[in-house]
C-alpha cells in the first residue's frame, strides 16, 4: 500500500500526461506520441489505484476480470468499426462515460464509508452535492448520447422532433432537479436520489430529440463536454485529482468544439439547443425557384472538364460519407494528378456529422493531410481554380448565405465555390439540403449538375479519364 500523498502525486502525473496527450494533437506528427502519453497516464492511474488498496480480497480478482471483459469488448469495437461510423461510435462512448459516472455516484451514495464520505444517511453535505451533480450530469450525458447515437446510426429519424410546450417542460424539469437536490441534502432520503437520476435521464432524452441530424456536430461536442463535467463532479466527490484535471480538460475541450461548430453555422449555442432547425416551415421561396433552368451533365462531361483543368478543388460533405465515396474520390484524384492537374480539398468546419469527420475519411483513403485545407485557408483559391467538385456537400456552398438576409443560413461562413470557373455538383436530386432551402448554386451558368450517387458518379468519371 502506498501513502495517500504519494497516491495524489501519481494522480497529478497522470493528469499532466493527459494534458500532453491533448497537446500532441496540435499536429499529426506529434499526435501519435501524444496518444501514447495518454495511455501511460491511464496505466499509471489504474496501477496506483490498485496499489492503494490495502486488503487484496477476492473481489480484486473480479476487478481484473471485469476490466479484461470491458477491455476486450472495447478493443474489438475499435478494430472492427468502419471509419464512416466514427460519429455514432463517439456518441456511444460518451454514453458509457455518462453511465459509468452515474454508477460510481450510486455506489458512493449506497456505501459512502468506502470513499470516506461519512456514513449512509449521514453523508457530508459537500460530497452529497458533488455526487448529485456528477450523477445528474452523467445521466443527462448517457440518455442524450443514446439519442444522438440512434439518430446518427439512422435507427431514429434525423429530423427534429418538436411538440408544443417542449421548452416549458424542460424548464420545469430543470427546476425540479434543483428542488430534488435541495431535499436530498435536507434528509438524504434514497428516494430523492433515485428520482434525481431518473429525471436527469429524461432531461438528456428531451434535450436531444428536437435537434436535427446536421446539427449533430454541436450535439456531439456538447455531450463530450458534459461527459467531462460529469467526470469532474465525481472527481470532487472522490477527492481525486486525476479525475478533476481530466474532467476539466474534457469539459473545456467539448465546450470549445461546440463553439467552433456553432460559429461554423453562424448560430448561437442556444439556437441549436432549442432545436427544431430545418423543419417544414421554410418552404416560402421554394415554388418560385423550381422553374429555373438547370444544366445537367454526365460523367463524360465531368471527366472532360477536369482533365483539361489546371487546378481542381474538391468539396466533400456528409453525402460522401453516406455513399462511402472517399476511396473512389482518391482514385479519381490520382488519375487527375497523372494528367498534371493540381488538386486540393476544401473542408467546411461543419461538413459531416462531427468535428473533423471529413478529415478522418480522407485520411482513411490515404489522402495526404497537407492537401486538405480548412475554410479560411482555401476560400480565396476558388477564384483561381478551374473546377470545383462538390461531392455530398450542399448548404455549406450556398451563396445565399452571403446575399440574402432573409435566408435562415444568412451569415454562415460558406465556401466560395461559385467563384471557380466551373462547378461540378454531384447530387442525387435537386432537393434542398438540411437547412430546407434551395441552393442558388444549382441554377448558376457555371454549374453542371451530376445527378447520381456520389460513389457511382466518381467511379464513372474515373473510367472516362
Amino acid at each position, binding site marked *: 500500500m502506498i501513502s495517500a500523498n504519494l497516491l495524489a502525486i501519481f*494522480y497529478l502525473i497522470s493528469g499532466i500526461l493527459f*494534458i500532453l496527450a491533448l*497537446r500532441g*494533437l*496540435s499536429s499529426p506528427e506529434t499526435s*501519435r506520441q501524444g*496518444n501514447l502519453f495518454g495511455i501511460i497516464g*491511464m496505466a499509471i*492511474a489504474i496501477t496506483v*489505484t*490498485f496499489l492503494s488498496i490495502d486488503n487484496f*480480497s477476492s*473481489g480484486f480478482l*473480479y*476487478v481484473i476480470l*471485469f*476490466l479484461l471483459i*470491458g477491455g476486450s469488448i*472495447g478493443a474489438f469495437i475499435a*478494430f472492427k468499426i468502419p471509419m464512416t461510423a466514427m460519429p455514432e*461510435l*463517439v456518441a456511444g*462512448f460518451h454514453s*458509457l*462515460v455518462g*453511465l*459509468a*459516472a452515474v*454508477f*460510481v455516484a450510486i*455506489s458512493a451514495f*449506497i*456505501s459512502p464509508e*468506502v470513499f470516506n464520505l461519512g456514513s449512509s444517511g449521514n453523508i457530508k453535505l459537500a460530497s452529497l452535492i458533488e455526487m448529485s451533480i456528477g450523477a445528474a450530469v452523467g445521466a443527462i450525458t448517457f440518455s442524450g448520447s443514446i439519442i444522438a447515437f440512434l439518430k446518427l446510426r439512422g435507427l431514429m429519424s434525423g429530423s427534429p422532433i418538436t411538440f408544443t410546450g417542449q421548452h416549458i417542460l424542460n424548464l420545469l424539469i430543470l427546476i425540479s432537479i434543483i428542488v430534488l437536490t435541495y431535499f436530498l441534502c435536507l434528509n438524504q432520503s434514497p428516494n430523492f436520489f433515485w428520482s434525481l437520476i431518473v429525471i436527469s435521464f429524461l432531461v438528456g432524452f428531451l434535450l436531444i430529440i428536437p435537434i436535427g441530424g446536421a446539427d449533430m456536430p454541436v450535439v*456531439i461536442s456538447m455531450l*463530450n463536454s458534459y461527459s*467531462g463535467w460529469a467526470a*469532474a463532479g465525481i*472527481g470532487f*466527490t*472522490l477527492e481525486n485529482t486525476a*479525475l478533476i*484535471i481530466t*474532467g*476539466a480538460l*474534457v*469539459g*473545456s475541450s*467539448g465546450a470549445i468544439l461546440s463553439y467552433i461548430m456553432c460559429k461554423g453555422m453562424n448560430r448561437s449555442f442556444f439556437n441549436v439547443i432549442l432545436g427544431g432547425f430545418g423543419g417544414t416551415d421554410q418552404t416560402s421561396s421554394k415554388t418560385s425557384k423550381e422553374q429555373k433552368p438547370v444544366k445537367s451533365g454526365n460523367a463524360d462531361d465531368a471527366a472532360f472538364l477536369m482533365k483539361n483543368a489546371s487546378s481542381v478543388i474538391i468539396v466533400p460533405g456528409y453525402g460522401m460519407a453516406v455513399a462511402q465515396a472517399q476511396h473512389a474520390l482518391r482514385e479519381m484524384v490520382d488519375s487527375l494528378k497523372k494528367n498534371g492537374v493540381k488538386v486540393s480539398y476544401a*473542408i467546411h468546419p461543419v461538413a459531416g456529422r*462531427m*468535428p*473533423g469527420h471529413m*478529415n*478522418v475519411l480522407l*485520411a482513411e483513403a*490515404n489522402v*495526404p*493531410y*497537407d492537401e486538405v485545407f480548412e475554410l479560411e485557408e482555401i476560400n480565396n483559391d476558388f477564384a483561381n481554380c478551374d473546377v470545383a467538385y462538390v461531392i455530398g456537400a450542399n448548404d455549406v456552398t450556398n451563396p445565399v448565405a452571403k446575399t440574402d438576409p432573409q435566408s435562415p443560413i444568412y451569415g454562415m461562413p460558406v465556401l466560395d465555390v461559385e467563384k471557380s470557373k466551373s462547378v461540378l455538383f454531384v447530387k442525387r436530386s435537386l432537393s434542398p439540403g438540411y437547412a430546407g432551402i434551395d441552393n442558388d448554386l444549382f441554377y448558376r451558368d457555371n454549374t453542371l449538375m451530376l445527378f447520381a450517387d456520389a460513389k457511382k458518379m466518381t467511379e464513372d468519371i474515373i473510367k472516362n479519364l
Partner: protein
Amino acid sequence: MEIDPFIFRLSIFILSIFVGYYVVWSVTPSLHTPLMSVTNAISSVIIVGAIIASLAGTNLSVFNQSSIFGFLAIVLAAINIFGGFLVTQRMLAMYKKKKKDKK
C-alpha cells in the same frame, strides 16, 4: 484559520479548465475527431472510482449492492479506455504526409 481542502481541489479544477482551453485551441481542426475520441478515453479515468467502489464488498460477499454498481462501471469504463485509445491510434496512423518519391 485553515483552508478547506475543497478550495485546493477547486483551484486545480479552475486552472485545469484554463490549461484545457489553451491546449485545445491549439489542436489542428483536421484532428478534431481524434480529439473527441481521446478525450473520451481519458475521461474514463473515472475507472479509479469504479475500482474503489467495486471493492466495497468483503471476502465473504464480494457482490453487494454497492460493489455491483462498481463492477458495472469498471466494464463500461474499460470499454471506453481500450476502445477510445485504440480507435484514436488507428485514426492517427492514417494521417500521412505527401510522399515525395511518389509524385
